[in-house]
């Protein structure tokens, strides 16, 4: 009931958004999904150092999107914060970031990459099956030539992130045994 009400209230402040050109490539679809995740995930207040800290979508590793992600994000806002795309070359650089797309190279060790990101309210997205089993939250998959995804809700909970049930409904849920 509360959900319905909040949805209703949200609809009241809707402004229409211009139609975008339909995505063509798999990568472009992923870029749109990355942006769309911002709509279905809530970050805690401490994820932002100041009130006007921008909302940052980071790319770690090789950038597969070219400028497409920048185009999508341009002018968009999340909870009043302007959205920007940052590129990081290594995990240690990552800070003030909210979504991180990790393009894992074959040589990379997932644990090593995730280690410095621990304790941050950061939504880690990747194509890698490895990463989601070691603390990543979302993994893109290609199912019947369509982009689908897996979600690890426990990892998200650990990072203090709230994922909408609607998003969870669409995803394949992954649970990882915690290593002691």
């Amino acid at each position, binding site marked *: 009931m509360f959900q319905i009400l909040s949805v209703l209230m949200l*609809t009241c402040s809707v402004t229409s958004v211009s139609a975008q050109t*339909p995505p063509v490539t798999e990568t472009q679809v992923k870029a749109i999904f990355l942006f*769309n995740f911002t*709509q279905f995930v809530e970050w805690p207040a401490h994820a932002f150092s100041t009130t006007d800290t921008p909302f940052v979508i980071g790319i770690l590793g090789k950038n597969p999107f070219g400028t497409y992600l920048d185009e999508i994000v341009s002018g968009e806002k999340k909870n009043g914060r302007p959205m920007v795309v940052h590129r990081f070359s290594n995990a240690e650089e990552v800070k003030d970031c909210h979504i991180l797309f990790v393009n894992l190279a074959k040589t990379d060790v997932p644990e090593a990459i995730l280690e410095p990101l621990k304790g941050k309210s950061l939504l880690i997205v990747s194509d890698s099956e490895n990463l989601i089993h070691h603390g990543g939250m979302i993994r893109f998959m290609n199912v019947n030539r369509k982009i689908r995804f897996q979600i690890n809700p426990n990892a998200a909970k650990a990072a203090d992130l709230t994922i909408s049930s609607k998003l969870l409904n669409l995803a394949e849920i992954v649970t990882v045994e915690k290593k002691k």
Partner: protein
Amino acid sequence: MFFKDLPIQKKLMSVILMTSGAVLILTCTAFFIYELHTFRQSTVQELSILGEIIAANSTAALAFDSPEEAREILSALIAHDHIVEAILYDVGGNPFSAYPQNLSLESLQVIPKSEGYNFTDSHLEGSQPVVQGTRRLGTLFLKSDLKAMDERLRLYGIIVILVVSLSSLLAYLLSKILQKSISKPILSLAETAKAISDRQDYSVRATEGGKDEVGYLNDAFNHMLEQIQEQNRALSAFNKNLEQKVKERTIELENANKEQKVTQREVYEKNKELAQALEELQSTEEQLIKMNNELERRVNERTKDLLASEEELKVKNTELKRTNIDLDNFIYTASHDLKSPISNIEGLTTMLNRLLDQRLEPNEKKLMDMIGLSIIKFKKTIADLAEITKAQKNLNQKMDPISFQEVIEEVLLDLSENFNATKPTIIQDLQSRTVMGSMKNIRSIIYNLVTNAVKYRSPERPLQLEIKTYQEAEYVVLVVKDNGLGINKKYHSKLFHMFKRLHTHVEGTGIGLYIIKRTIENYGGKIEFESEENEGSEFKVYFYQGIA
């Protein structure tokens, strides 16, 4: 006009039924319209809320391009069987998913332009944006049929018809019972009125009715009936009284006639006897025969005249049954017309008596004397009758102040020889010394009263006479009180009747009091009396003196 002629019961019921029917129909119509309006509103609202829910649930499916998920979400609409169509468009306006599933997406290229829900002829349809956060992700189109509303309205229609008919029936039954409290007393009153006018029975009373206006009407009606009854009673009493009076008068007249007849028969018989005596004397008295014949003829003639008068009297009697005025005429006629014949008889008898004086036997002479006495009696009666007519005619006499003292003294002087040896004790108390009237009348009244007191004195005690006068209101009152024989109670009502004689041992005609009453009443006065048998009588004469 038709309504006006309806019986009051039907009228009341029509009024109640029409009023309640109109109120019911108006109320039901108002409720029906209100229900229609609110139901349309709530239908729109329900569809809108359903749309919101579907739209909110569809955001992720749209955002992450999952038509399967969208289809699943839309398939939940199967629980809402009034939804006939639902289409989800993506943000580019292309059909994304549709319900029911057999709907082909290719046929749904047109995205609805306006948002919000509207009624079409048979459906309620409209669209709303699908938004996540502040971001528009697509459009949801919903189409609902109006079966529920139709059913609801049909149900309402049935309820309205049921309520109206049941209420009308109830109103009919209630009004049938309740109208009685108004109509019953009115109907009862109408019945009573009808019964009275049909049967002329005024003893009937209206009984129904409480303390309302109808009750008041009943009371007034009953009161009216009482008055009518009372008047009827008074009228019939008056009629009876009148009849009684006429009867009495008739009897009196018949008695008078009888007396006359007896007298005449006696005269006739005496004449016959005389004729016989004369016949016996014929041989010696030729002339007497002639005279006798003459006398006989004359007597027959007069007898015929008298018989004719008698016939006339009888005719008059019947007339008198209708009116008392004729009585006066008769009295006048009788007194006037009888005067000269009786005088003739008297003269002739005297003549005859003188002629026969020495030759009559003692018993014949006795008969002759009896004839003479009868004639005197007859004359007295006629004179009294004349008095009555005089009393009638004295109305216009001059009114003078008359001194009681003078009149009383005069009367007592006149009567002094009647007092015999025992002189009466006379007590006078004249507070009013004079009275306005005619000397003749006042004298006649006092003379009659005193004469009566003297005539009807008690043989057991000396006569004591009290004469008083005083003023009372507009009357001067004369009281004559004696200690004589008094009058028996049963005769009180007849005391003032003509020829009414209560004591027969003393001579009289029974006309004195009648004349006094007539005289005094002619002047606006009255006469009253009190009497106890063997104790005495008291007469009070009220002389009307005009407004003092």
